[in-house]
């Protein structure tokens, strides 16, 4: 029992470390696209991401805990229960804390970027956007001095020059020989650590839970519980081959596969099919609950198969 609790405690600590790391990574990603290069943006972004990325950190922690339980807890049933308890603690903590009005308000206020800042191109550097290059010698009194624009997609000759080009601060354009050219730097896009889930027409679990803030608590917890059971079902990966290194790598791939599977299941086509099947059998449930049921069933089936296979192997080994 002491070892069992120790594994859970250690996993909780790992969860905190993982959450901090991925939150800061997400904060850095947001900071890249911020209009002002301010180190404070990364902290504000990380605070916001910490609330959103709990499911991701939890699933990371669970996969690490697979190996900890495997090493330290002999009973597989106890290990399974430990993982379930750990998952419930982490998910409840994550979902509960993000519903605290005070915290949400504080994060929303701090992450609100405020007024849009116009970032003019640096003077003395040729800036190219698309096939249009713009050079500005200097800025003075709402004007760009020595402005040269070259639209490489137009016919030759293409160089346009204006000794003084007025800047339209509402659009960030300068007028060079009667044509408007953009004199602001383009908005940088945030660098996503995981690609868009559009491939699956569904949403990543963290995006899905994030969008359910206004939904009834039962639906939110059902969605989290379904995902949790599905994740624990992947425990078989940590002993799938006779080489622990291969198991570890396959488990890492399994983690990605789990998240992708969840996103695929949440997609319109698959969920629609499941919904149609459920209706035919007289079962009428909201989509999140239905999806959670499917995921839970898959997870429990995988878990049961693994427990059965282990027991059989141990019996054969004469233990």
């Amino acid at each position, binding site marked *: 029992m002491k070892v069992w609790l120790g594994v859970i405690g250690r996993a909780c600590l790992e969860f905190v470390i993982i959450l901090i790391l991925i939150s800061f990574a997400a904060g850095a990603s947001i900071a890249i696209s*911020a209009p002002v290069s301010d180190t404070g943006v990364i902290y504000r972004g990380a605070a916001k991401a910490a609330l959103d990325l709990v499911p991701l950190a939890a699933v990371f922690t669970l996969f690490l805990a697979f190996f900890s339980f495997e090493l330290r807890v002999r009973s597989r049933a106890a290990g399974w229960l430990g993982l379930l308890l750990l998952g419930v603690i982490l998910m409840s903590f994550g979902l509960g804390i993000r519903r605290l009005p005070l915290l949400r308000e504080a994060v929303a206020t701090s992450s609100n970027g405020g007024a849009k800042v116009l970032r003019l191109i640096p003077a003395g550097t040729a800036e190219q956007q698309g*096939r249009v290059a713009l050079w500005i010698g200097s800025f003075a009194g709402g004007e760009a001095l020595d402005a040269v624009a070259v639209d490489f997609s137009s016919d030759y000759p293409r*160089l346009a*020059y204006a000794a003084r080009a007025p800047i339209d601060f509402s659009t960030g354009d300068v007028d060079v020989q009667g044509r408007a050219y953009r004199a602001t730097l383009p908005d940088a896009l945030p*660098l996503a*650590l995981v690609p868009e889930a559009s491939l699956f027409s569904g949403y990543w679990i963290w995006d899905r839970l994030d969008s359910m803030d206004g939904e009834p608590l039962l639906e939110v917890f059902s969605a989290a519980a379904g995902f949790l059971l599905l994740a624990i079902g992947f425990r078989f990966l940590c002993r799938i*081959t*006779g*080489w622990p290194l291969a198991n570890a790598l396959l488990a*890492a791939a399994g983690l990605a596969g789990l998240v992708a599977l969840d996103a695929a299941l949440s997609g319109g086509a698959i969920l629609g099919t499941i919904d149609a099947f459920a209706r035919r059998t007289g079962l009428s449930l909201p989509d999140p609950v239905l999806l959670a049921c499917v995921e839970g069933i898959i997870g429990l089936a995988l878990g049961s198969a693994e427990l059965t296979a282990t027991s059989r192997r141990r019996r054969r080994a004469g233990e």
Partner: protein
Amino acid sequence: MNSGRRIFGVAILLDIVAFACFLGYAMASYSANRIVPAFALKWEAAEALHGFLGALAGLQFLGLAIALGSSKGKAEELVQGAIVPTVVLSAFLAAAALMAGPQVEALRSGIRWASATFSSSLDAAKASLEAGDLARSREELGVCQAISRRDPRVAELESRLSAAEINAIRNAVPPPAREAVQPMDPVAAKDYYLKALAYAEKGDYFSANWYASTAARLDPSYTDARRLAATSWEELHSRGADPTDKERAAFYSRKLEGYGLLRSGDPVGAYRVFKELADAKHADDPDVRRYLAESLTETEKTAFFKDEVDGALSSYPVPDILFRVPAVHGSAKGSGREASLALIAAKDAAWSGGALYFREFEYLEAAGGIPRALVRSPYAKLTDGKILLVCVERDRPANVYKPSWSAGPYSGPASLVELPLVPENAYRALAARVDPSTLSLLEAWEAVGEAKAYGIDAAPIVGDLLSRSALPFAVFTAAALGALAGGRFRRRGAGFPRGLYALAPFMAAALVPVFLISSRIDILISAWSARIAPGLSSLLLAAGIRTMVLFLAVLLMAGARDVDGAGID
């Protein structure tokens, strides 16, 4: 086998297998529609190397993990024994990747560009031939031939085009020759006569005849000039010329015309005349040979040939050029002619033979908001300190591409612009903006400083340097983490069945998502560093963050130990 030798063996074997896989993939995915067949082998090798270098960190992780993960003994002993070979192997691979990377990228970019140019020129040549524009078709086909002469598509089009050209020549009617009317100018005639006299005294009757004839044409009443023209012609005749021979007389007349152009400061015109004479079966004439060479030399001082530009631009041009001419403080060129703005724009530019060639060139120089020089030229050539604006077709010297000045020139000839530009530096700064990965590490470093002087956005080159500086960290960190993973996740108990090695491909495939996420984190470190600390200081910031990650990996590796009594079977 000790862990050191095992690491070398497994890692190198894995690298070879991985390279073979990348090569196989490159060969399978090769398409002749995309890449010209003449470059197929080079392209496949470059693609395989590109993939291999990109996956180097992942391979290093996997190699170390497999080597240690299939070893026997205590984890701490294995890891300690692995430190030296890991460091040596990682250092070697990282250094090799840093050196080979730019060359691989340059090769890939060059082949991609050449293939794209080949395809577009081939299509244009075919379309022009269909439309009856044989000159355009020949020009486009010339580009294709410069890239891949032996391509069957080029040979097929060449035969069709040649047939069309022969037909066109047969059907052509020669235009009637027109005689230029010379205006009356007694003062100039006198000058020409005096020059003719001087040449006659030196015994250069060839020149004397030309100047005297010109003087006579400028002033028909100038009897001395006519007389001198006649006597010098007699002298020439006594040396072999036959005045009754009309063909020879025409030849001499053309020769004199070319000579006159050369002496009057029009080397391009002289080259045109002597080239025509050389092509018209007079190439053996010593005067033609001599003055053709002389006019060629003079032409190269003030102009350049179109085949030079075509050759350069068919290699790998940098598109969309706009840069500032760096100011030279305290130089003779800079003093007294300081402009607030001096910019060059061009459709593209290419480096060849120590010169930088531009297409659709524009140069603007302004002072106090007023343009004092604005020149445009279809082609331009930058050599040390000057930009030549006149371009001549070597085989058809009548085709001359000349500059047009909207403002200026305020000093010097109209055929060139003197600017304090070093072609190599300018090209490096331009290439760094478009394709920085093709520059060597040293060149890339220099290009950052030059970009500022040339008013070029340094962000791409700094971004590339950030990405390159990440490679050694990634290789070392991956190696440390691989050793750690291998040490921790070893198979315990009796022996290591060889059949388990069959899992290696699945392990490699399983590593892909982790590798992709790690690569994204690495890109994130680079991008964030560039955002927070612009310029070269971002390299220091990124290096600091990566050192911390590496330190953490080493710490984890050093702290690796067995968990007694809790073996994974």
